[in-house]
Each structure stands twice: as C-alpha cells, then as structure tokens.
C-alpha cells in the first residue's frame, strides 16, 4: 500500500500532518509516542520577534469543538531555528514552519531567516483570528492575500504554502489570489471566529473576547471549502478542520486535498497521530485502495 504523497515537490511518507498550534514543536508528543509516524509537522506559529500571547482564559469548550485565543505565543523564529529545529529536523518527518506577522516586513524577515534553515516547507499564516494586527487581516480579501503572498514569495527559497481563513465570503477567489501571487500550495481552513459567554457573570469566557473555533464542529465547513478551493487552483491543497478519524482524513482527500492536517484531535486524544494513521490504513485496505493518491479529488457527483 502506498501512503506517500507529493506536496509541492516534498515527499510526505503519508498524507497526515500535525496542524500548527496543536503540536508545539513536537517534543511533548514525542514523549508519548514516536512522532515519525506523521507525514509532516507544522510547528507552532512563528513570528520574527518572540510573542507573549493573550492573557488567560485562552480556551472555551463547545459541544464538539473548542474556541482558542492563544494569540501566537512563541519564542520567535531565531530561537526556533537555534533551539528547536536541530532536534525536530532529525525526527524523520517533513518540517513545516508556520509563519505569522503583524506587518508584511515581519513576514518577509521571518521567511528570509527560515529560507536559510533546514525546514522543508513554509506555511504562511495569514489567518490567525486572535491577534490585533496582521494575522487574519491579511487573509480576508484577495487583494491583501495577493500582496503579502507576493512580498513573501520574493524572499522565500522554500516551497510556500499559504494557510487560508474561512472567515471570507468567497474562498475560491482567495485561493486563486494566493496561487496567482506565487503560492506552491494552499492549506485550509484556519479556525472560524466565534465567542463564548458565561451567562451568570455576563462576561466572555475568553480574555480576548473572541476566539477561533476548531474541532468536529467545523468539519462540514472545512470539507466544503477544501472542495471549493481544490477546484479553484492547480496547486496542491492541504485540508483541515475537525479531522478526528482515518475516515475523516479520507473524506478530505476525496474532496480534493493532497494531504490533511490534524489539530484539535491531538488535544482531545494525545495519541491521535498513530491512531488516525492506523485508521486511514485500515480504511484504505477495507475499501481496496492501494494508493492514497487514488483518493485525492475522487469525489463523485454524478
């Protein structure tokens, strides 16, 4: 059985990637299982300078998902390259550096540094809903997506994946804008903006008031947008949003994703990585699928 897929010239041994923000830099989960079971790992969102993130509370539970408002807490791209990457790049997984910023210069500077590092792919995070400046503001309309993607493209010596926000009116036009500006791949969806209120205190649960919704709650939206984006662009699409089982992963591949990212499932089940990998293999063998690539974009609408 072939599980490997090609993502803009980078070979993944399987189509499963740990999603940024749910997996740190891999060390914590490597204590629970061998993280080389993943095809790739997208690290916690990096900014050019270190960031402290938002005050607590940063998480609220919903019936089938979570709202988070971490606000890009990270040690900065220099500390990542110096202290985390040497270890992570030895783990036998494709390393994807997720990059965020408040200004275009923040993005280009961080990407310039990462272009000289051993990361395999750069994922441009223009869709974080939890920071005051930058983040999702770059990702909400085709024009701004085009501008930041184009600026980064000039400095980026690695394959460039652009992570899109679902908080837009037309995902296809945003995906096309990223592709036209030089993206080698598209990943989607980031979280859907939401909020939670404590009725007794009449206060928001999150200190940031609003947060990003993830988990099975957003899976139907994510599937629909993965399908629409993959029809709109020629570059590979990485789908994510509420994947919790191997069958969920297969659904995203069928919708048109070349690979998938798994995020919130790591939080509810710390051994989600090896479990979902085994489940996807089982799904394929039970359904007579010899090659994961056979699933990609195989949705039947006749």
């Amino acid at each position, binding site marked *: 059985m072939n599980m490997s897929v090609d993502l803009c010239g980078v070979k993944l041994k399987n189509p499963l990637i740990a999603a940024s923000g749910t997996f*740190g830099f891999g060390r*914590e989960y490597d204590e*629970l299982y061998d993280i080389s079971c993943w095809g790739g790992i997208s690290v*916690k969102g990096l900014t050019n300078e270190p960031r402290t993130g938002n005050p607590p509370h940063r998480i609220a539970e919903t019936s089938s998902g979570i709202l988070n408002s971490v606000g890009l807490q990270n040690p900065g791209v220099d500390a990542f390259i110096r202290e985390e990457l040497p270890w992570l790049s030895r783990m036998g997984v494709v390393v994807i550096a997720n990059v965020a910023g408040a200004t275009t210069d923040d993005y280009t500077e961080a990407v310039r540094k990462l272009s000289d590092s051993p990361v395999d792919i750069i994922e441009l995070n223009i869709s974080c809903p939890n920071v005051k400046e930058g983040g999702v503001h770059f990702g909400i309309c085709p024009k701004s997506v085009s501008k930041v993607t184009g600026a980064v493209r000039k400095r980026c010596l690695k394959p460039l994946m652009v992570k899109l926000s679902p908080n837009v009116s037309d995902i296809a036009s945003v995906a096309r804008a990223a592709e036209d500006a030089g993206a080698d791949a598209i990943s989607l969806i980031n979280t859907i903006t939401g909020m939670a209120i404590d009725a007794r205190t009449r206060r928001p649960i999150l200190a940031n008031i609003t947060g990003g919704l993830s988990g099975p709650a957003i899976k139907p939206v994510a599937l629909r947008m993965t399908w629409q984006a993959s029809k709109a662009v020629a570059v590979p699409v990485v789908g994510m949003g509420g994947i919790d089982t191997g069958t969920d992963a297969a659904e995203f591949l069928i919708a048109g994703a070349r690979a998938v990212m798994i995020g919130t499932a790591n939080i*509810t*089940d710390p051994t989600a990585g090896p479990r979902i990998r085994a489940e996807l293999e089982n799904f394929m063998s039970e359904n007579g699928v010899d090659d994961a690539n056979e699933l990609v974009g195989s949705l039947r609408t006749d």
Partner: protein
Amino acid sequence: MKSAARDIVSRVISNERIADRIHDIRFALHSAAEPPLPGQFAHVSVPGVFLRRPISIAGFDPASRIARLIVRVAGRGTDILSHMKTGDETRMTMPLGNPYPIRELTGGEIPDIWLVGGGIGAAPLLYAADYISRLAGGRAGIKTFLGFRDAAAAFGASEFEAYGETSLDIGGFVTDALTESLGKKIPDAILACGPAPMLSSLQKICARSGVRAYASLEERMGCGVGACLVCNCGISKDAGDEVSYKRVCRDGPVFPLPEVVFK
C-alpha cells in the same frame, strides 16, 4: 526531564460521595502507568464532553496501584465523572505536570511542612500528607489548614488529622489560623492549593514571614501535555521582573508561590 506520562485505560474501583458535590473516585491503574507524585494530575477523558478534565491526584497506593481522584462537580464534565460506576473504564494521561518538590524540601531530614487547602484544593494535599508521612516513617508533624465555603462542602479533615494538627475553617478565611500559627513558628515550607484569592492572600502572608511556599494552580486546559499553550499563567521570577506566561499543565501546576502573578 523526560515525562513518564502514558495514555492509559483506568477502571473505576469505587466512587463515594464524601461531601456536597465532592466525589472520591478510586481507579485501578494500568500496569504501564508510572507512579504519580503529589501535585501531579491526570488528564481524564469524560464520555459526553469534548475536552479531557485535569484532576489532581489525591492519593496513590504503590502496592495495589490504585489512584484516587477527588472530583468537585463544577459543570457537565465533572458531573458525568461523578456518576462513574465501579467497573467503568476511561482513558487518562498521567502522571502529568510537576509535583510539589517534597524530596528536595525534606533532604532526608524529618520535614516540618504545613499544608494549606481551600475547597477542592485539599485533594492534592491529601496525597502530599500521605507521601510526606511515609517518607518520614510516620514521624512527620504535618500541620494542615483547611478552609471550606460551608460545612456541607468540607471533606478530608479527619484524614488530615491522622497526619497531624489540623485546623478547619468554615465560611471564613483559611489564612486567619495560619497567620496566627506563623506568629509562633515558621515551618520549612508551605504547600498550598485552593482558589486564586486564597493563594493571593497566602502569597502576601508567606512573603511577610519569609516562609517558602509552593502552590498548585488551576486554569482551563487543552492538551494537558504542554503543546497547545492555552492554560497560561503569569509568572515573574523576581519582583519587578517582566511577567511571562508559563504553561500550568507542563511548567506547573506547582509553582513557587512568590513567582505567581495574580490578577
């Protein structure tokens, strides 16, 4: 330090209601689980709610490998947990987090450690009392200060009494009796767990009397292993230093009390 935490299936051995909305649940631990230390917690999967629930370890018997979790019903998740029956199984990742630094504090001597617990915060201190007592061959004089909202919510007092002098405050401030005792004697250290206002007040009292203190904190948690960064708390190593965010699940839940920044 490489974490010894494992994701395991545990089986309920007994579940007893010991006070108003307080349940004492014993779990038989899977053989792969490492013995927990006082202050560490289990991240417990609860059928019917999305996230796991972090519950401090209230006791562990190395011979029978039975762990004790004392749960306060605070919402839907803990309500479901409180209804678990003998024989029910659930997954939990444990032991997680940093324990109270009891071995470092005792240094082989018979320790003079006081415990300060408010409400459900008394739970991890029950294990601390048992652990210190075993370490000292039963000769440790553990002084405990407990505070509860009302008499119906009080638990554990008679258990703590078996380890040493125990004061019980209902509806007032647990710190009142502590302040009085600190006027007479300063212990080697204070281990605490309780609501933030109690810990904040305790921080000031300990600073005035110069006693070392460690507190176990609580925050809304995600992954429980240190990856998702949602359970942050403000920490400042020295007064006047910049406040940085630490992970309650991974860098804590036990922190030196003087370093904790309360709102």
